[in-house]
């Protein structure tokens, strides 16, 4: 078994490299899109109960639909390939980013904002100097959740021709090859763990003040 896996790695190393790169590429792209949409929406949601209901409701509904179902449903609209895969992953990833961003902005104590205003900051200066840095820890926690979910779920992208490590697993399933299944599974797990660790390192740098 281990010999089979080693053999597969040595004969398919170029292909594995492409698949890992594709997996990371799709994941990162979906994450970036989710952040670009989720963070502003989360900020808007934090403004009032009404705006929160307005923004979160559609994503909450979409999140209930399983990713695989979203993928299949997107085929008639977007065809196959990377585009529907990234779309489905983004839908999956937006809620944790959005909700945590909203909670992050709400968690800033009123007195902090008031003292910032009282010493003479404009609303715009407060946004960049006080509110965003204050919301950042929660925001990053949400992005981390999204990242780990995306890396695991990108596996499904192969189902509709999106590429990535899912190709090994789905091919392994088709050929009933345990070595491919184990290798694919291990690689996805390792990538998922690694992405979490890398993200934690970045977080620690961004939030250095918390660790002194």
């Amino acid at each position: 078994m281990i010999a089979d896996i080693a053999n597969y790695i040595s004969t398919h190393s170029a292909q594995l490299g492409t698949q890992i790169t594709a997996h990371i590429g799709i994941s990162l792209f979906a994450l970036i899109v989710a952040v670009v949409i989720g963070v502003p929406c989360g900020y808007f949601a934090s403004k009032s109960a009404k705006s929160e209901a307005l923004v979160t409701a559609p994503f909450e509904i979409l999140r209930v639909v399983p990713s695989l179902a979203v993928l299949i449903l997107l085929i008639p609209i977007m065809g196959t390939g990377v585009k529907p895969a990234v779309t489905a992953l983004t839908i999956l990833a937006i809620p944790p980013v959005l909700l945590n961003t909203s909670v992050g902005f709400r968690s800033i104590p009123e007195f902090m904002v008031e003292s910032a205003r009282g010493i003479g900051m404009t609303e715009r200066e407060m946004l960049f100097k006080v509110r965003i840095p204050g919301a950042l820890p929660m925001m990053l926690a949400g992005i981390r959740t999204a990242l780990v979910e995306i890396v695991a779920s990108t596996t499904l992208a192969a189902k509709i021709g999106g590429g990535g490590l899912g190709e090994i697993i789905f091919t392994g399933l088709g050929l009933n090859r345990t070595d491919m299944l184990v290798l694919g599974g291990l690689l996805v797990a390792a990538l998922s763990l690694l992405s979490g660790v890398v993200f934690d390192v970045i977080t620690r740098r961004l939030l250095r003040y918390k660790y002194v």
Partner: protein
Amino acid sequence: MSVIQYENVCKKFAGSSKYAVDHVSAEIESGEFITILGSSGCGKTTLLKLTNRLYDPDDGKIIVEGVDIKTVDPVELRRRLGYVIQQVGLFPHMTIKENITVIPSLMKWDKRRMDERADELLKLVGLEPAEFRDRYPHQLSGGQQQRIGLARALVLDPDIMLLDEPFGAIDAITRLNLQNELLRIQGSLGKTILFVTHDINEAFKMGNRVMVMNEGRLLQFDTPREIVQNPADAFVKSLIDSARTQEKFWEGAL
């Protein structure tokens, strides 16, 4: 010349039938240390926040340094009035130096000038610059944080300081030290200070004149001695009596 004038200032909050600040008129001279005394909900904090336009009055006007503040940009006004609150509100993600110089950095002071100003202020509030300038707020005690709050409020060298129960959450011994330091700072810099407190001992110790407030109204505004000798009404008298009773308790205990 009076540096702050309140003329029939009124403030009512939405949904409340009573005035938070009820027709308050007073004049404050330059260099005075004014304490505003009253129990919670009496309007003392509201009066302070009307002074730097965190609130705007429903009626009446407030004149600061000869100008009706209604006509002044709130941000510009606030940068001329130092402001400190009980919870301090230091920014957790900034070092002590960055906290002190946050407004100067927005005003694009050069780095050297900011460094010098931060060190100067740290010394003024009794903290060793080399030890404290690069720390973060959560590494400081409550009393030290309040000193930084004071330094931050002093950074643009305002002539007037508004302090809202700055020592309210600080233990008795540290509070005594901070009170004495504040009196020393005020004595050496000649600032005009408005200091809100609910502690009658603090109010009478710190203020050269005391504003006694209840239910939005300014009941008496006079020197501590005059207030003790001639309380304006039953409420002021009861306030003084309660302080006296406390004192008796200490004498009895010894």
